[in-house]
């Protein structure tokens, strides 16, 4: 099992991968990728029962993860490759013509680890709910995890899925919201007045857990709580409070890095702040 220190090291490498991938591609979304890096690292390297060597798109006999916020591919692909789903060298092909690492997740190029397409926002929660019901029907006692951005939860379909999952007692489902408070046009408060997300999810009949999404101990604690709630009749939402662009000072806490690419000089500064722990791709 990976220690907390190990997880921090992996997360540092994932952030380096994110910066280098978007720099090489000259496009991509570093901000949300970096805000979700820590808890997603914990999920893949400590929490989920998953095995790249036996993975299939059917997901049977394993926990499954669905990325709903499809633009977080730099983080997603880095973690999948670091977890052994495909060679890390392939990260250099991100967003390039012919790549399996499409700008947003695709199942059409056969990239291991990817269950479903994402990119048009607000849909992955429904997919995860369906997978979780499929696991129940198959008597597969594994869980389904799904990641949404906080801005993404402005989509109406999210709340359709919220109502449905609670009504059907989908209690093998753990949803996560990356609450970085930022979206393309500004803060989530200034754009849409998201308000009290925890109260909203509770009102929809979900168990909620709030945690600091950059404190590895708190992250593991939150996942442990979610694990305890499995099979208790309610879906679980973990609200991870995070900072967009976390890990690089000039990128942190602003919507400006949602989908912007650092230039060569900025890239050098950013990489200087992120320790290379597992070897760059």
């Amino acid at each position, binding site marked *: 099992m990976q220690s907390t220190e190990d997880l921090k090291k992996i997360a540092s490498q994932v952030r380096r991968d994110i910066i280098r991938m978007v720099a090489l591609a000259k496009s991509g979304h570093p901000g949300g990728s970096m805000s979700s890096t820590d808890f997603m690292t914990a999920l893949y390297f400590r929490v989920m029962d998953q095995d790249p060597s036996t993975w299939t798109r059917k997901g049977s006999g394993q926990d499954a993860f669905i990325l709903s916020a499809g633009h977080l591919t730099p983080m997603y692909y880095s973690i999948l490759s670091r977890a052994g789903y495909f060679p890390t060298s392939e990260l250099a092909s991100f967003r390039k013509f012919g790549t399996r690492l499409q700008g947003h997740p695709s199942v059409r190029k056969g990239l291991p680890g990817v269950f*479903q397409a*994402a990119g048009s926002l607000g849909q*992955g929660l*429904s997919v995860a*709910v*369906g997978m979780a019901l*499929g696991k129940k*029907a198959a008597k597969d006692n594994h869980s389904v995890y799904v990641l949404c951005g906080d801005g993404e939860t402005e989509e109406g379909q999210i709340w359709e899925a919220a109502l449905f999952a609670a*009504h059907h007692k989908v209690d093998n489902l753990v949803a996560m919201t990356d609450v970085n408070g930022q979206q393309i046009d500004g803060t989530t408060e200034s754009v849409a007045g998201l308000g009290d997300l925890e109260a909203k999810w509770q009102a929809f009949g979900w168990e909620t857990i709030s945690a600091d999404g950059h404190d590895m101990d708190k992250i593991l604690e939150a996942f442990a709580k979610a694990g305890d709630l499995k099979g208790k009749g309610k879906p679980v939402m973990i609200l991870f409070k995070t900072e967009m662009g976390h890990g690089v000072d000039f990128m942190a806490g602003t919507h400006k890095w949602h989908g912007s690419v650092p230039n060569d000089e900025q890239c050098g500064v950013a990489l200087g702040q992120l320790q290379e722990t597992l070897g760059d791709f």
Partner: protein
Amino acid sequence: MKKYTDRGKKDTRSGFGEGLLQAGKADPKVVALTADLKGSLKMDAFAAEFPDRYYECGIAEANMIGTASGMALTGLVPFAGSFAEFVTGRVYDQIRMEVCYGKTNVKIASSHAGITLGEDGATHQTMEDIALMRVLPDMVVINPCDWTQTKNATIAAAKYNGPVYLRFGRPKVADFMPDEPFEIGKAYVLNEGKDVTIIATGHMVWEALKAAETLETEGICAEVIDIATIKPLDKATVIASAIKTGAIVVAEEHNMAGGLGELIAGVLASTSPKPIEFVNGKDTFGQSGTPSELLAAYGIDANGIADAVRRVIERK
């Protein structure tokens, strides 16, 4: 001409309900979802027989499509159903990304298609759904013509691995097709003729047969083809018939834009162009009325088909 007997008026949606029940009995992976329209979609029998495999989604079609795609990932065979407008236009993006681009084995069960939905009016009548579904890569589009063919098409859709749009309707219409396994992608030649080819889909197939009987009394021998699968289209049968008769009429309960008529015209234009006439909606919305009133008002019925045949033969 070949004689077809109406065994009694039945709605095609009930054919779907019967097909779903039979598919469910044959394959435990078949599940059904609906957005508060279980009765309208005739899913009652399936829900009663397999309560654990029936999922009420409430009035939330977008989530229904996404949930169905997630179920399909795990190996289930979901039929997600509502009125045609609400499982196409309302959820086009969900079907595009989660079902077609995502290549999931989801069956879109689309009832009350076209103006024969009737009294509810244009908000519930869609004349655009075939267009929306047929432009999606990898989507199979099936529009069967009667109770028996809808039942068999439903069974075939359950066995087929991939996205299917299955379109059927509300009113009770003639039930006349032989009870035989449905072949996806096959055009059914119901009557062989030499003067004109009437290509019809859905409710218009029976109307085409009625028109052909009328035309026979005028000395016109019409070939009648049932295009139950709009995509993939059986081009070979269409082209061969066009070459044989030299004149085409296409009839559908759908608007011109993106419908079967444009599809056939495109195929023939690039292979063997022939005079062609269309029986369909012309960039229009529907309105309240009974199904037969509406079909007559929009000219989408046996009379409209016979008139179109007379016009197209003049152009030969």
